[in-house]
């Protein structure tokens, strides 16, 4: 589904990413983890085809990402103007605009797709709500519905679970599980290592470069974590196994 080869990105001369190579199979769920400023968002923008690489190339389904409308990039909730005068179904309908083309208005087929997408995320009843009236979990589910309406085959989610309570997090993980059956590939950026290890097929540990990719236990080794986090991270050995304690107090924030 996705192949990155020696991808490098520089911002104003300083390298943000370098030498990133990996492949993702269709239907896989990958968590991209790493400290703040590791280049998670940059990697996502490159994959989505909205930021050019300085070197190397990314291919989605065999082509450069810039030509696809099957890639959905879900914004961080903090980057959205929630007082914008649109309803839930308005936002989900926006996913259809790529297929619609200029001067065309949404038709019956589009409305059906929107309705179906809202059903999948369990938000049919909220279709006419103004987006300011949604809870954090509902906001995130609305964006997943928009990706479904877009008929996305690859969904990129930037910190979808941060700031959500546990039930809301679990609800979203359950929705992602149903997407697996539809062969939708999901890549999630998160700073929560425990959650990533628990719910994802493979992890991609990033810090400007690729430190490790593979099954959680292969990636979350003490050497890898030290390379990515330096002193910000503590590994605590207990009877039930190793726990990761993260010091995120002084990050850049979102």
């Amino acid at each position: 589904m996705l192949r990155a080869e020696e991808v490098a990105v520089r911002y104003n001369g300083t390298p943000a990413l370098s030498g990133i190579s990996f492949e993702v199979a269709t239907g896989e769920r990958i968590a991209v983890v790493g400290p703040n400023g590791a280049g998670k968002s940059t990697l996502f923008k490159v994959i989505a085809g909205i930021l050019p690489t300085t070197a190397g190339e990314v291919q989605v389904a065999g082509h450069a990402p810039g030509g696809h409308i099957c890639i959905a990039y879900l914004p961080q909730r903090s980057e959205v103007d929630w007082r914008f005068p649109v309803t839930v179904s308005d936002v989900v309908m926006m996913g259809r605009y790529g297929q619609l083309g200029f001067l065309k208005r949404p038709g019956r087929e589009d409305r059906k797709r929107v309705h179906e997408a809202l059903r999948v995320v369990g938000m049919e009843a909220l279709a006419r709500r103004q987006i300011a009236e949604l809870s954090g979990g509902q906001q995130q589910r609305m964006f997943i519905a928009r990706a479904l309406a877009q008929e996305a085959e690859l969904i990129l989610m930037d910190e979808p679970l941060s700031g959500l309570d546990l039930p809301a997090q679990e609800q979203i993980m359950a929705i992602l599980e149903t997407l697996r059956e539809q062969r939708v590939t999901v890549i999630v950026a998160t700073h929560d290592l425990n959650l990533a290890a628990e719910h994802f097929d493979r992890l991609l540990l990033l810090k400007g470069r690729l430190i490790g990719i593979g099954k959680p236990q292969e990636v979350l080794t003490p050497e890898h974590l030290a390379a990515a986090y330096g002193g910000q991270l503590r590994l605590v050995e207990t009877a039930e196994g190793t726990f990761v304690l993260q010091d995120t107090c002084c990050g850049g924030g979102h």
Partner: protein
Amino acid sequence: MATLIEWVVAPLRYPFMVRGLLAAVMVGIVCATVGTYMVLRGMAFFGDALAHAILPGVAMGYLVSGGARDPIFWWALGTGVLTALGIGAVGKGAQVKEDTAIGIIFSGMFALGIAIISTMRSYAVDLAHFLFGNVLGVSQGDLWLTAAFGAVVLVTVLALYKEFLVLSFDSVLAATLRLPAEFLRYLLLILVALTIVVSLQTVGVALMVAMLTTPAATAYLLTRRMAPMMGLAAAIGAFSGVAGLYISYYASVASGAAIVLVATALFLLTLLLAPGRGVLWRWFRDRRT
């Protein structure tokens, strides 16, 4: 009743009042429609800057033509579009922050405009017209230009409604849907420039930003969806134009100022009384709980 009708009809006996009313209605509608995007995208400062930056163009047109209207319009149009594109490009790899850069360009161009106008003999009167508008001096030709370019702006905004909506709500989505986001962004800046130029004679440079933002901001407080917000903003803009002109006629107040004051009063009333969101409404709700 008869006196009320008389009150409404009396000014219409003057052709200049009829032309002024038509211009005010058109300007109110076009400004508020484009202004909806400006309010949602936080472009009020850009609008104010662009309106002021058009002044040297107006002044040059005036100087070159000796006061004829048409050349002034075209000079203003050229300056407006060029400045819009220039300001649009600022902030990409600039040495200073975007709003600083806009502030510098805008005040510099405004000063240049004043400098050019100050070389003319009828300096004070002319400057006042450009700054504050002179809707009662609208000619038949002005009316046609306003109608033509206003229609271009409205048709473009309506035709690209969903594209501008996505661009304003989530520009990353616009990019991943492979919409021409950069083109749309510049197109919107050009539409703002066109709107300002067609409105120049009605409200003038200094009060332009009020016509662009106040009706749209009022509508924002009253609606929860984009299309009704746009329609309501247009209605408020048109009403402000008409009501302002009547007040101007009966109270002998400058027309541009009267129009803007009506729009401002409507905004303040809405802020106070809007159902669900108004200050009074909240006060009652908080007291009950």
